[in-house]
Every structure is written in structure tokens, then in C-alpha cells.
């Protein structure tokens, strides 16, 4: 399905109310939507929702041979998948400009900014290193995918723990989580991508929704300045580490400074929320509380239903008890059966044929009439 274009009336309406200092959902310019982080039962699995935008991230690891240029560094691979689940206009298994852009932004934010201690992922130099794979799945696209996906990626990476290994001679033993406590990944800093929608020459909207994104990317009537999306990657030390601009050109450098200033505040608060979530998750896990995505479904939501104990009274059955008897039955069956109407004939050496016995083919005549 093609992406539905935004209607002209929506466009002008949104432009007008934004110029008037309001937003469609009642937020102020610098306000973000509600951020929620939920963790799954595995380490390195999390679902982040930013308003209605939902992203699932999962980190998995395996032992591989390192790249020749960097023999003592682990490998990190980020893969973003936008399936039709996110919104109907996306096609499955297709690399679109959108996917490529999102993927590259995350790679730049987490791979190129060197926030992960790759050297700690090395097991044996030039032979064995850990390769981390982050799978980011977009579940629902209600605008600002980048911010949501980046928080999900960071949360998954920070939450992830890899199995411990010990080296015995030239052998490497990978311990399961039950055997030895897994090891968390070392992160030097926590960068997050924050999106700003630029309207006109000096309005910056934090965390734009789907419609705001669409409106600001539209071409404006001639004369008035077009808008764009500015993505700022910012860590908790107020260091920008990624910048990306899509849409029309920025006319005023100040807007970039304004965005960076705002991002430095927001970046820190997001990282704080994230760290808190991880700590509380860790303490729960220490208390052997089972964490599961099933917890997302709560009775607080009006459209959810929870059934605890569903029991059914059924006949008990044990195969061993009945087997001998049923075997006998079956044997009886076999004996009753009339002799097989098929013949097995060895024709050539190493060849066998299964044929219908000649006298059994009375019906063939009927069908041959039909065929003619």
C-alpha cells in the first residue's frame, strides 16, 4: 500500500496551530510524550514506547572470528526491521530509504561514537570475539521512530549481559547463565537520539508525532520557509555525537544551537530514566521475580482480559498403560484385512517396483470410457 499523503486541510491546520503556539495533542513545544521501558525475560530484551510509538529491541551474541583489521575488538551489528506491523505502507523484507537512514543513524550513534567497549568483547585475540547483534523491530509507527528506536537500542545494550567464558588452554568454555553470573556490557557513555521538527525559521518541536513529522516535511508554499527534521545524538555528558538533518535547509545556525542546548537537558533526563529502569529491573531479578513481557498486559487497560486459572476435567491417559492392548487390537485388524492388492516386484538389479495386481483392475474399464 502506498503511503497516504497528508491532506491539504490537515497540513494548513497543523501549520496554523503550531504557529499559534499549540500542538495537536496539547503538548507545549518542548514536551515529549510519555516514555515507558519494559524488559523481557532475557537479558538485552526491551520494549520501549514513546507515546503510541513502540519499538522492540533484542540483543543476541555469538562467538565469531574477529575482523582482520581489528583483531582485538568485538563486533557489533545493528539491524532495523520495519515490517507492515509498524504501519501498512511498509513492505516486508525491503530495504527502503527510510530503513537505511534509520539503520545508519543507529549505527552512527552506537557504533561510530564508540560508546561500547569493544575490546572487552575480545576472548582470544585474532581468534574469538563476541559479536553482538541488536535487532530493532518497529512495532508501531506514530512518529519519531528514531528517538524511540535509539532509546530501545541503548536500553537493550545496557541491559544485556553476555555469558561468562573461561579459557582452559586453547579451549574456551562458555558458561550458561545458571552456571556463572553473566557479564554486563561496558558502555563508556549513553548516547540517545533526540528528534526536533523545525517549523518556520525558529520553532522547534520536541518529539514530533506522525502527523507533525509529515507536515514539517511537506513543501510549503513558495516564499515561506520549509521545515525539516533535525536529529541530535546526545549523551549524558552534554556531548553531541550525531547530527542529521532531513528536509529543507536551515536558514539560521542558531536553531542548531538551540536544539543542542535543549537536547543536552533532555538527553540527560532520558538516560536517568533508563538507568533507573535498569536498576529496578536488576533488583527485581535479584529477588528472583520473573520478568516477562506478559506484564505489559495489565487490568488497567480497558481492552485487556486476564484469565488466571483455566482448568478442565479430562480423562487421564497414559500411553504405556494402553499400548499392549491396542497393539493386540491392531494385530487383529491386520489379520482381518484381505490380501494386499499390490505386488512388490524386483525388476532390474537394485530396483523394485510396486504395482497393482492385474486382476484387481476391473474398474479401469469404466474410467477409460470416461476418458474417451
Amino acid at each position: 500500500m502506498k503511503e497516504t499523503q497528508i491532506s491539504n486541510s490537515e497540513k494548513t491546520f497543523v501549520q496554523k496551530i503550531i504557529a499559534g503556539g499549540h500542538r495537536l495533542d496539547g503538548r507545549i513545544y518542548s514536551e515529549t510524550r510519555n516514555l515507558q521501558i519494559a524488559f523481557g525475560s532475557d537479558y538485552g530484551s526491551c520494549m520501549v514506547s514513546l507515546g503510541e510509538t513502540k519499538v522492540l529491541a533484542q540483543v543476541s551474541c555469538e562467538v565469531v572470528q574477529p575482523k582482520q583489521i581489528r583483531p582485538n575488538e568485538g563486533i557489533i551489528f545493528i539491524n532495523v526491521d520495519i515490517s507492515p506491523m509498524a504501519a501498512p505502507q511498509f513492505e516486508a523484507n525491503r530495504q527502503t530509504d527510510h530503513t537505511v537512514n534509520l539503520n545508519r543513524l543507529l549505527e552512527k550513534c552506537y557504533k561510530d561514537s564508540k560508546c561500547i567497549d569493544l575490546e572487552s568483547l575480545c576472548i582470544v585475540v585474532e581468534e574469538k570475539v563476541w559479536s553482538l547483534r541488536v535487532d530493532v523491530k518497529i512495532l508501531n509507527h506514530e512518529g519519531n521512530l528514531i528517538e524511540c528506536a535509539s532509546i530501545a537500542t541503548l536500553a537493550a545494550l545496557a541491559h544485556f549481559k553476555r555469558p561468562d567464558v573461561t579459557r582452559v588452554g586453547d579451549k574456551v568454555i562458555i558458561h550458561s547463565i545458571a552456571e556463572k553470573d553473566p557479564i554486563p556490557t561496558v558502555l563508556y557513555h549513553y548516547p540517545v537520539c533526540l528528534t526536533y521538527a523545525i517549523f518556520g525559521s525558529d520553532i522547534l518541536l520536541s518529539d514530533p508525532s506522525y502527523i507533525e513529522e509529515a507536515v514539517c516535511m511537506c513543501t510549503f508554499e513558495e516564499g515561506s520557509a520549509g521545515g525539516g527534521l533535525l536529529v541530535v545524538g546526545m549523551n549524558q555528558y552534554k556531548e553531541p555525537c550525531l547530527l542529521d538533518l532531513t528536509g529543507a535547509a536551515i536558514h539560521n545556525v542558531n536553531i542548531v544551537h538551540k536544539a543542542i542546548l535543549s537536547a543536552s537537558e533532555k538527553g540527560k533526563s532520558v538516560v536517568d530514566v533508563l538507568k533507573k529502569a535498569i536498576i529496578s529491573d536488576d533488583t527485581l531479578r535479584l529477588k528472583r521475580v520473573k520478568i516477562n513481557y506478559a506484564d505489559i498486559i495489565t487490568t488497567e487497560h480497558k481492552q485487556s482480559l486476564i484469565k488466571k486459572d483455566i482448568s478442565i476435567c479430562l480423562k487421564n491417559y497414559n500411553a504405556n498403560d494402553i499400548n499392549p492392548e491396542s497393539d493386540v487390537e491392531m494385530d487383529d485388524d491386520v489379520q482381518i484385512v484381505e490380501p494386499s492388492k499390490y505386488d512388490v516386484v524386483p525388476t532390474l538389479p537394485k530396483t523394485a517396483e510396486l504395482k497393482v495386481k492385474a486382476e484387481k483392475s476391473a474398474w479401469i474399464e469404466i474410467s477409460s470410457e470416461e476418458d474417451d
Partner: protein
Amino acid sequence: MSDVYKVIHPNKYFNDYISLNVRPDGRKFDEQRSIKLNANAISNADASALIKCGNTTVVCGITLELATPKAEEPDHGFLVTNVELLPLCSSKFKPGPPSDYAQVISNTVNDIIKNSKCIDLKDLCIVSDKLAWVLYCDMVCLDNDGSIIDACITTLITSLKSLSLPAVSFDVETEEVKVDISNKTLLKVTGLPVATSFAIYQSPESNIVLTDPTTFEEEMCGGIGANLIVCWNQGLLCGVQKYGGGNIPTESQKNLLQVAKKRSKLVEEVIETCLS
């Protein structure tokens, strides 16, 4: 004349036959096609077999290779099965990477072999964590006329049963591998899984089950994916699979299993005769 009828009104054409209690190729509903099985059809391969079930023709070749076992399972060898549906066997297949359909067939064949536990992967290991056999079992469909999974399983099992592994000596110190081709031992194959396909035709009155369907019959019954596949392994079931399609009438359920069981006995006999 009947050919034209078949093309223009395939549903009606088929229904006409079914209402007369006969199938377009003259078989009864529960009758199977004749089978021709030949072992060692391809001498290059380490083991091979060719089967013709009616028009469906599948050839299976096994090639042996040595490899290092996976770190997680150091004393397991590998059994790699792959079904190839080339464009030559049916107009429905296009050249290029395997289609979803071919992947599903491969997966089903692989599952049946795994479930039947007829090969113990530990038998394929030579030295733990160092050396193990890899059995590449490639099944190529030459002519696709229905019930392809049955044919695949039978060729595969026949090939496996005729496969013998050469003796291998492994020097732990030098890691040198010596293969002695003159000294071969037969691979241990326990059990003998035989798959039987059924197509379920939803006629206006009731659902009719057809044994060993042809491609045309499969199409009339909702595509190959909708087949019921029953797999017997020497008196025990090792797989009953059915994905969508017509519903099985509860009363014929039991009967179906018996038909499959009888057929499995016959096929077993065919395989034994072929290999003896």
C-alpha cells in the same frame, strides 16, 4: 475434448469424476500410485536413489564431507537435507533462490527425518570436538506430480540405508586425517519412516480424502500445503501434519491412519526388495 474441459472448468471436471467415485487417473479414492525405486542411480554420489511415484520423480544424492563439530554439540555430526524444486519440474517454479514453498518442503522433510530419529547424529562423529561427518542429502525433484514429500522421504531413506561410511583415522597429535576408502561400514539406520500424503477435497456433500494425490488433485484441494501427511515408522507414528485446507471428517480419521499404515508396510517392502 476432456483436456479442454479440464482447462476451462477444472472444478467441474474434477467434481464430475469424484461424484462417480473415481479419480481422474482412474484410481479409487484410497488407492495409491505404483512406485519404481532404484538405488545407486548416481555412481558419483556416495549414496543415491531415484524414485518414481506415478509421474513424480525425485532423485536423492548423498555426499560425504568431513568437518569440525559445533562447539555446543561436540559429539554430533551433521545431517543436512535440502529439497530442490527446479523450474524444470513444474511451470510453477521460477529460477532463482528457493521460494518460500521450497523452504517449507525442505523444512518438513528435515523435521520428519529428525523426528523419526532414524539416524543418531552421534554415529557421525569421529573424534569428539575435532572431526565429524557431514551428510549432504540433496533431493532434486525432476517431475512434480503431487505427493512430493512422500517421494522425498522414500528416496532419502533408501539412500541413507545404502550409505556406507569409510573408516577414518585421526591423529590427535598432528591432526592428520586418513580416510580408508576400502574399509567401509554401513551407516546404522534405525527405523524406516514412510510418509503418505492425503488430499482433502471439499465436495458440496462431504469432505473426501484422496490418497497419494497428483498435482492436479492437490490444486483442487487447496494447494500442497493443505495436504495431510501421515508418517509411520515401523508401527509407530512419527509425524502427523496438516496445515489448513479442508477439514478431516472425524469418522474417516481412523481409517486414514490405517491406509497410511498399510502403505508404509508396502513401501518398506519395496525398499527392502530394492536394497536386497
